[in-house]
């Protein structure tokens, strides 16, 4: 070291579970490198017990999060965008390093990821009107249908797009009032950890999102079979295992979002609502109309 160059303080990358930053209960870590193979960090290697704890946390947070007003959830999601914006440079660095992108491409991905939160923040209080409504039944009844969150959603995040892809799969889970257990990209987990720090300093209640760094191949079966998980997004499931995970999910009639055919989609494209509807139930309520 020359002159007054300061020696950087490195970050310890941990899991984000129930609003806290634990190491893996297994004590395991794994080496994360950049796209060129240079050492970046040792990430926590989440175990099945971490996944189990994350599900407990997500279930615990569900009542309050799903019961919050849609306006409140929208503001919380918007707050995530605000706080992310403040860490813009850090995300750019991590995305560029992890995904091997040019700085301008990395910036575009981070911009899009932040904007995605804004998109979903604006959806929370529109879904009821767009997906629900009153049903003109042939009788003296008032009958209406409303979308409601499915519950605890396990998300195997995309392996390639470590930030935009990640946000694209779990922001809609939150926007619809579900709580999430997210397994990050195995080889590119660092943006997920930083995003956990953003979530912790936004207004997202602890437990609503739980971010696990580690191996979707290892955690997938536990989450697919877990009886207290209501839905699973297999986007980041390793090729060749997705069918098996889907079979396991069938045991408890989970809602399943399959891995996209033909590899990861263009995450920058207009997301539409197709990533929200799989995690919404429709509840229909009937009541007589009489004097």
């Amino acid at each position, binding site marked *: 070291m020359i002159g007054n160059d300061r020696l950087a303080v490195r970050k310890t990358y941990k899991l984000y579970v129930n609003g806290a930053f634990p190491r893996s209960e297994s004590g395991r870590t794994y080496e994360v490198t950049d796209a060129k193979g240079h050492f970046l960090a040792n990430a926590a290697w989440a175990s099945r017990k971490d996944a189990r704890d994350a599900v407990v946390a997500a279930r615990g947070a569900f009542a309050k999060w799903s019961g919050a007003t849609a306006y409140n959830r929208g503001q919380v999601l918007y707050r995530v965008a605000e706080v992310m914006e403040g860490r813009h440079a850090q995300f750019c660095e991590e995305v560029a390093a992890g995904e091997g992108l040019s700085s301008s491409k990395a910036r575009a991905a981070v911009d899009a990821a932040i904007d995605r939160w804004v998109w979903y923040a604006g959806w929370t209080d529109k879904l009821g009107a767009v997906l629900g409504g009153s049903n003109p039944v042939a009788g003296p009844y008032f009958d209406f249908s409303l979308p409601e969150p499915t519950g605890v959603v396990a998300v195997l995040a995309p392996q390639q797009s470590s930030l935009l892809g990640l946000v694209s799969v779990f922001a809609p889970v939150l926007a619809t009032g579900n709580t999430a257990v997210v397994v990050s990209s195995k080889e590119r987990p660092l943006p997920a950890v930083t995003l956990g720090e953003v979530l912790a300093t936004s207004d997202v209640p602890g437990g609503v999102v739980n971010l696990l760094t580690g191996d979707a191949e290892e955690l997938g079966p536990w989450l697919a079979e877990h009886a207290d998980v209501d839905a699973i997004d297999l986007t980041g499931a390793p090729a060749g295992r997705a069918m098996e995970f889907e079979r396991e999910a069938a045991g408890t009639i989970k809602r399943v979002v399959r891995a996209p055919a033909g590899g990861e989609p263009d995450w920058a494209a207009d997301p539409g609502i197709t990533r929200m509807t799989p995690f919404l139930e429709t509840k229909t309520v009937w009541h007589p109309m*009489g*004097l």
Partner: protein
Amino acid sequence: MTHVLDPDALSHDARALVAPLPPYDDVTRSDAAFRAFLHGLPGVDQVGAEARAAQLGTRSIKTTSKAWAIDTAISMVDLTTLEGADTPGKVRSLAAKAKQPDPTDPTTPKVAAVCVYGDLAGVAREALQGTGIHVAAVATAFPSGRASKAVKLADVRDAVDNGADEIDMVIDRGAFLAGRYLDVYDEIVAVKEACGDAHLKVILETGELKTLDNVRRASWIAMLAGGDFIKTSTGKINPAATLPVCLVMLEAVRDFRAATGRQIGMKPAGGIRTTKDAIKHLVMINETVGPDWLDPDWFRFGASSLLNDLLLQRQKLRTGHYSGPDYVTVD
């Protein structure tokens, strides 16, 4: 027969003078208590009640049961004329029909009662002497009930003195809708007293009460106050007796007997014109309160044109072919 208007009857006391049967003997202790009791009765969901009534209306009755049902219905008719144009001649003609509804068939049962205005009760009484057919008179400023309590009581006494052994009174719907339930109760108690030995039928005029919750509450006021029958309507207001209203009133008499041991009769009146309608009511009795009420002492039809339809259907059953209006007598 003159009656001095009783000045006491004009003053209102918040506490009812005559307590209802146990276990309800304290519910009339104050306006507030009575209101709390009546509003504490289970609510009635109109849509559910209508659906149930409609379902009971789909029961299919055939052959032997139908013959029995028609004869039972005839024996339950309060053959009624309540017109400004009524005359002694009209009442005598009605009484003749009451005794022998179908001149071609002496096995036809006679009706339960003839129902007239109080001033003609004497005519009916004379015409029906020795037949066992009751003379019912409407009273209490029928049909509106808009007169002072004293006038109403005088009206009742007059009808009884004229020979009525059944009095069909109207409740004070104004007081009821204004929430003065104890006034309604007290008036029924007073009318019951004025009836002496005559049976008291209490007309709720459900078409003016509008909601089934009100029908249930009014039924309970009438039963608690000592009415012997509760009756739907005067026949002068539409809608009159509907199946859902009858259902709620039958549930009331059922629940009242279960709680107090006292059986109250029920009389739908107005709007029941066909044998089919009458049979629907009998089915409803059968499945709601049970066969104890399948008796003219406990169930009446307030009607006029119903009787002819019952007779036509009876003729059809007997002869096997359809009959026509010229084969029954005009009223």
